[in-house]
């Protein structure tokens, strides 16, 4: 069971009920329900076009829901728009910095727009810039920053006004793996320091591991919602790869002694078994064929996605991409009438 939903002492940071959004005949989000507890890192995972960004836009008051309701930091996203905006920080998928201005000027502008108390701005600015390691570059124009630096600055800016909920829409999109990792480190550190709730979307499977809980979204609906461990456990079997002195004998022995169906894959005897790590001692004791090396891998979130949607995330992405361009064509030809 997800630990986060056990303590119901404080109201949820985000509460969503039957939230839906259509653009013309295209149903981008088809009625989603979920709660995010205060202090959680909550991830929305799914292929491009699954409705993640539309959901985040509704929660950020950037798009009006067609039906259903949602509260963020205790405020209704439609009726109390300004109260929601005062309590959230946003990092968009596309950059929203002014390249002509320096890092500091960008932050100063944000503080002024949000009406942050002037006397606290310098200290706060120093703090968030330190957190993302950009204090030394504060006087450089943002146009001279790399993609990763810009993203870090945007995250710092999202934190600047001490929001209660921080929304990150694809915070690592288009960045190299190393930069992605450092962005995640910053996000986790900031979260520890500030005790805020983080809601993010991603379509990188490996990134979901950083979340406390994950909602898997496909075709505008949530198909699974739980902690990464629980989701993976539901998929079941671990994958075990062994190198042996005699592979054919090993395959036969596996079938005979354990009733397991093994295949050769990339030069190793490969089979799936629940609780693979606990199986290894038995394997050595009972196989009867000398084992040179063994490798046990837990199911990945890709496996999880596959088990819930019946398709790999890449295929789903291509499908929805096609569907989207079709929908777009329809909308455009419809609009011309």
């Amino acid at each position: 069971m997800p630990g986060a939903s056990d303590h119901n002492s404080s109201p949820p940071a985000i509460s969503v009920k039957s939230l839906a959004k259509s653009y013309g005949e295209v149903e981008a989000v088809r009625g989603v329900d979920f709660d995010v507890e205060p202090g959680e890192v909550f991830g929305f995972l799914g292929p491009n076009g699954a409705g993640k960004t539309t959901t985040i836009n509704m929660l950020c008051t950037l798009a009006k829901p067609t039906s259903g309701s949602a509260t963020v930091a205790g405020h209704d996203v439609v009726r109390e728009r300004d109260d929601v905006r005062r309590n959230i920080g946003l990092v968009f998928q596309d950059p929203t910095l002014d390249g002509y201005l320096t890092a500091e000027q960008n932050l100063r502008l944000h503080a002024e727009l949000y009406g942050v108390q002037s006397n606290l701005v310098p200290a706060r600015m120093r703090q968030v810039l330190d957190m993302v390691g950009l204090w030394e570059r504060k006087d450089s124009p943002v146009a001279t920053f790399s993609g990763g630096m810009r993203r870090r600055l945007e995250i710092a800016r999202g934190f600047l006004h001490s929001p209660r909920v921080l929304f990150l829409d694809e915070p690592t999109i288009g960045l190299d793996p190393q930069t992605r990792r450092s962005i995640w480190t910053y996000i986790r550190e900031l979260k520890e320091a500030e005790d805020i709730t983080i809601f993010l979307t991603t379509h990188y499977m490996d990134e979901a591991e950083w979340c406390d809980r994950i909602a898997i979204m496909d075709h505008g609906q949530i198909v699974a919602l739980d902690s990464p461990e629980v989701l993976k456990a539901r998929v079941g079997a671990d994958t075990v790869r062994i190198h042996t002195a005699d592979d054919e004998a090993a395959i036969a022995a596996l079938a005979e002694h354990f009733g397991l169906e093994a295949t050769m894959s990339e030069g190793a005897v490969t089979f799936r078994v629940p609780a693979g790590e606990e199986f290894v001692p038995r394997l050595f004791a009972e196989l009867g064929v000398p084992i040179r090396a063994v490798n046990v891998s837990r199911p990945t979130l890709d496996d999880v996605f596959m088990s819930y949607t019946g398709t790999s995330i890449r295929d789903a992405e291509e499908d929805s991409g096609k569907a989207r361009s079709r929908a777009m064509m329809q909308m455009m030809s419809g609009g011309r009438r």
Partner: protein
Amino acid sequence: MSTTTDRAQTAGPPPAAPSPIARVHVPERSIASELRAIKIVWKRELIRFRSDKLRMVTSLVQPLLFLFILGSGLQRLSSTSTHGVNLKTFIYPGILCVSVMFTAMFSAASIVWDREFGFLREMMVAPIRRSSIVIGKCLGGATVAGIQGAIVICLAGFVKVPYAPVLILEILALQLLLAFSITAFGVMVAARITQMQAFMGVMQMVVMPMFFISGALFPVAGLPAWLAVLNRFDPLTYAVDPMRKLIFDHIHTNPLAQKVLNPGVTWFGWHVPGLLEAGMILLLGIGMLGIAIWEFTTTE
């Protein structure tokens, strides 16, 4: 949960000694917070203008060409019909207006850039009124265009317009008014146009005809009927005309030159006073600002 701590470790060293957090909060919306927002949006335009030295120089090229090349060249053809008045002095108010107009339109175009580069979104999601963004933008654009105009005003002496303090102040005020109205017009257009090329196209289509029809380069009396009608409908006419009246009040000419070169705009024979003309520019500006605000508040 143990998994959380596991992950915190893989995430690298935890933040060193939890420093006291400078916690801030975002107050509820008030007039003061809106004014602060207007001020920062305005200030941003100035910061950007200051960092764009090239723009300052290039936008001076056009008025210089008009004044000193076209003005000096045509002087030879027109010396008889200007009755002793330097042609450059005559076209000066028109050139000042058109250079202000171009700068103001360019300032308004920054909204289109802001949209393309995403910065508009940062402003749109802030807990402030959209009208504060639009007003800040218009005032910023007007200030930048006003600075540009002030530079052209500095050239007054070269075209025999005297540096009389009252005259300079009056011209400055008039061109600021024009700068504001044109920026409002540009912002109104930019609310609907999302591509830079399209915006530039509209700009060419609007600015050049307005300039030529306004009487920046010719007297507004005795025109062919069709051109007279167009001229009276051109808003820029009512910026150039009062400015020319002011200048001709301050230079020494013969009555004939006054009559020919500075006839003043008339409606069915009635001389439109300069103050009314300035008032029309102001009203137009406020009207277009209103439309721009409406456009920005109604888009999702």
